């Protein structure tokens, strides 16, 4: 057989030859070093030209892209903005709360005001758990966005064992909203708003985000993806976690065998993934944040007002929340404290790859290995870790008390 011409080789490599022809080419290449070399060269050209053509796709023709439009897509900007708001809001809360004793349990209050006047002020979410409390009852908040109703729940656990009742108050406020909600608003307030409908919803979301001082993140909380704390077993109750944190928003729970994965939205642009490799079960959490510039900005404003709005609560919850809010005001320091207090299992490993930081530790309660990873600096990741641990503890407590 004659040597192969280049066109035939390309056609062969492109799979364009008939089976007969292909067989002949193949046979020849097998025994002709010269043509084998030509085939190798042709492969190189095919691969290289394909790569070059792919490069075309990266940029519109003739245009050299400038850096990305500087919208508020930069997480750092949001963080900075959030930090400012948090500090402002936190200090207000602290001032209001000063002088109260902290007692018991775990308090969680969720309030959403849809009333026009209140809207801006209402959406603040604080989750407080006093350090002195017993196991603390977990609070779980459920909002049914579809109903556009406001749900308020307050769960309070008395520190004293005998008093360890869980009081749950749930009030629903019609969408028209009423001032009453405001007056009864606990220090710890979590607002859930359905993003969907009302203009006010965005604001509410924003404010909620701002209030996670400890982490210094602003988080937007789309209503639908409300916090879902799963009942977690085997978490240590003795861990007294403190700190007020809004629940991390769970944006997804990819299924994986042998592990639980949860995606959390930490900030609009940051997602954290918690993977729990379980001896018995696996649980993972992922945090994700999407940025919704407009909403967030609105939220920010709302948050400021909201901070001032909360009126004192008479229940233990108020106390608890106060404590928490103070801690929150402490910002990072508070988080650090909280961490020290709660004495979570030590971080056993920290790794960074491709900008993704991963923290690995062993859960004290369950003995499971937890992996938290996200595109965040280590300190932030550790704060999220603390929050997750708290939520887990809360969920476990809730599961225990409210089977």
């Amino acid at each position: 057989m004659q040597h192969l011409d280049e066109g035939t080789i390309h056609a062969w490599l492109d799979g364009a030859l008939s089976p007969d022809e292909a067989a002949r080419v193949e046979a020849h290449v097998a025994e002709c070093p010269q043509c084998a070399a030509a085939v190798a060269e042709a492969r190189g050209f095919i691969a290289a030209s394909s790569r070059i053509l792919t490069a075309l796709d990266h940029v519109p023709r003739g245009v050299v892209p400038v850096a990305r439009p500087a919208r508020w897509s930069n997480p750092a900007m949001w963080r900075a903005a959030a930090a400012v708001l948090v500090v402002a809001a936190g200090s207000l809360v602290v001032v209001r709360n000063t002088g109260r004793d902290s007692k018991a349990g775990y308090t969680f209050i969720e309030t959403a005001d849809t009333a026009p006047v209140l809207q801006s002020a209402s959406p603040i979410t604080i989750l407080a758990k006093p350090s002195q409390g017993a196991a603390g009852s977990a609070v779980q908040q459920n909002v049914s966005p579809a109903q556009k109703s406001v749900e308020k729940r307050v769960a309070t656990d008395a520190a004293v064992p005998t008093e360890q009742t869980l009081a749950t108050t749930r009030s629903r406020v019609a969408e028209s909203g009423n001032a009453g909600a405001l007056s009864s608003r606990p220090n710890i307030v979590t607002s859930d708003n359905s993003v969907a409908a009302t203009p006010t919803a965005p604001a509410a979301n924003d404010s909620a985000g701002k209030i996670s001082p400890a982490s210094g993140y602003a988080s937007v909380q789309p209503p639908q993806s409300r916090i879902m704390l799963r009942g977690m077993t085997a978490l240590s109750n003795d861990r007294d976690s403190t700190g007020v944190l809004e629940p991390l928003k769970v944006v997804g729970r990819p299924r994986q065998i042998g592990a639980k994965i949860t995606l959390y939205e930490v900030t609009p642009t940051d997602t954290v993934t918690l993977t729990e490799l379980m001896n018995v079960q696996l649980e993972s959490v992922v945090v994700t944040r999407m940025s919704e510039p407009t909403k967030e900005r609105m939220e920010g404003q709302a948050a400021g007002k909201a901070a001032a709005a909360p009126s004192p609560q008479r229940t233990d919850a108020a106390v608890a929340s106060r404590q928490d809010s103070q801690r929150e005001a402490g910002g990072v320091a508070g988080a650090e404290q909280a961490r020290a207090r709660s004495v979570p299992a030590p971080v056993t490993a920290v790794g960074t790859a491709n900008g993704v930081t991963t923290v690995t530790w062993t859960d004290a309660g369950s003995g499971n290995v937890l992996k938290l990873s996200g595109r965040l600096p280590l300190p932030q990741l550790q704060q999220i870790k603390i929050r997750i641990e708290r939520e887990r503890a809360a969920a476990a407590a809730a599961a225990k008390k409210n089977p």
Partner: protein
Amino acid sequence: MRRRKHLALLAEQERDEVVEPEETTLERAQDAAMARKAVDALAERDRLALLMREEGLDYNEIAEALQLSPGSVGTTLSRARRRLVESYEALQKSREEREKNAAS
């Protein structure tokens, strides 16, 4: 549904960040510019054949579109690829030399 959308957006965002890190934007732009130059340097028939092939058309379709005989598509493509790669490499080389000169 909404959540899925959300996740999709996130994934997209994630991909963007991974695939096009800030640092390499310029480099990518340069590569793309060179690629375009190299493609533009091809004869029209070669260029069209190559782009069609890249789009997934098979030899018969390319032959039909360009009014070639099916047998010559391989030849056209082989020539187009070789020239594309050669001119791209030439551009690359000249760029490297420019940078070298600029550095020294």
